[in-house]
Every structure is written in C-alpha cells, then in structure tokens.
C-alpha cells in the first residue's frame, strides 16, 4: 500500500500524498499560477503565515522569522491552547533557488526530516512537489503522531472548513 490519492483525480486542484519509501513522504499539487507567484507565497513570511497553519489545527503563530537564502535560518513559534509553553520549529535553508527549489532542515529534534520543495512551471501552471526524507523509519512513523490523539476534533473542524 505504497500509494494513496485523494478522491477526485480528474481535477488539477488535488493533493496527492505518497509514502515513497520507509523514510520518505512525497506530496504533490498543481497550482493554477506561474512559479514566481507560488514561490513568493512560500518565501515571503507575511504570505507564508496565511496558509501554512491550517485554521482547524487550533494553533496560533506567534512569530515567523525566515532568512530565506542558502545557509539562512528560520524559526516558527506556535501556541496551542492545550499546551502551556509555545512550540518552536526551526532549521536551516540548505538551498534557495528562486522560483525553482527550496531545501530546509527541521532541527527541533534529532529525528527531523530534510524537506525539499520543487516548483515546475508548465503552461502557466506550477507543479509543487514536496519531499520529506526522515533519518529513520521510526522518525517517519512518529511524524505528526504526537498530535494525532488530539486530531479527530480538529479534523471535524477541517471538514467543516473544506465543505464551506
């Protein structure tokens, strides 16, 4: 069962999620806009904040620092009502090639993945491919698992959001 797609394969606006191997996750989606626009939405902190945190997750983004250049670092700080302390996610941009490719590390844990995002423009549309490589299979299994217990309620909110 290496592959599972979201229902409607006939439309362009569909997010495909694939477990490529024991250590890899691949997510793809085509956006109806040129690459420079899609890349801007990933690399401008003010725009990134708008979409990165699903509303249904109940998280608020306290700060979002992104020094978007090869070798630069980023730091996102979230607060969730269920936790006393804010949570920080941080790492380094290993590669920033405008309108083409972003590679960053996830250094909040030793088991963090390396994330590669590519932007491929074709006929005014952009295929975004996100690839996460985990150091071990166990690390991959644990990704998002910690938050899973609290998720059913959030998924219900998400369903409402997506249906609206």
């Amino acid at each position, binding site marked *: *069962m290496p592959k*599972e797609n*979201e229902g409607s394969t006939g439309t362009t*606006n569909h*997010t495909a*999620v694939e*477990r490529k191997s024991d250590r890899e*996750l691949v*997510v793809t*989606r085509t*956006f*109806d*806009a*040129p690459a420079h*626009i*899609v890349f*801007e*939405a990933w690399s401008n902190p003010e*725009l990134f904040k*708008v*979409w*990165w945190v*699903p*509303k*249904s*997750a109940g998280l608020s983004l306290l700060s979002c620092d992104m020094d978007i250049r090869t070798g630069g670092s980023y730091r996102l700080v979230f607060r969730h009502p269920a936790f006393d302390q804010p949570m920080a996610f941080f790492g380094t941009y290993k590669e920033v090639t405008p309108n083409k490719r972003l590679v960053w590390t996830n250094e909040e844990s030793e088991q963090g993945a390396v994330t590669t995002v590519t932007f491929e423009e074709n006929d005014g549309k952009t295929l*975004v491919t*996100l690839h996460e490589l985990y150091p071990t299979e166990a690390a991959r*299994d644990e*990704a*998002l*698992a910690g938050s*899973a217990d609290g*998720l059913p309620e959030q*998924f219900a909110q*998400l369903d409402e*959001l*997506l249906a609206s």
Partner: protein
Amino acid sequence: MTLTGMKKHVSVLEEAGLVITEKVGRVRTCRLGQRRLEEEAAWIERHRQLWSARFDALDKLVEHMKREEKVDAQRKRR
C-alpha cells in the same frame, strides 16, 4: 513461482510487517499483519489531511496574488 521465489516474496512482506508467519513442523502459516496495515493507512491519512488543508489555503492565496498581479499590470499599461 518456485518455492524459493515464494519464500523471498513472503520474507519481504514479513520484513515490512505486512504479514506475520509462523512455522509449525514443516508448514509455515502466513497471516496479514492487520495492525500494521491500519497504522500505515492512518499515517497516510494524517498527512493527507494536513497537506490538503495547507494546499487548499495556498491555492486560494495564489489565486488572489495572480489577480493582484494582473490588476497591477493593467494599471502600469494605462
């Protein structure tokens, strides 16, 4: 398929945790590692929910940015 080939196939499935085998005497019995399959499906589903939500929001933003860019371009032409 040869018996050796079959053994190889089963051992790959067993390593992946998708089947569990038990040997009693000369007979090796295989059964599905059901729990593992469910965990795998749940893992995919968690990630699909997250990325669908993110990318739906990104899609809306990108549409908005595209319209803004067109408006800007028209203004510049005038």
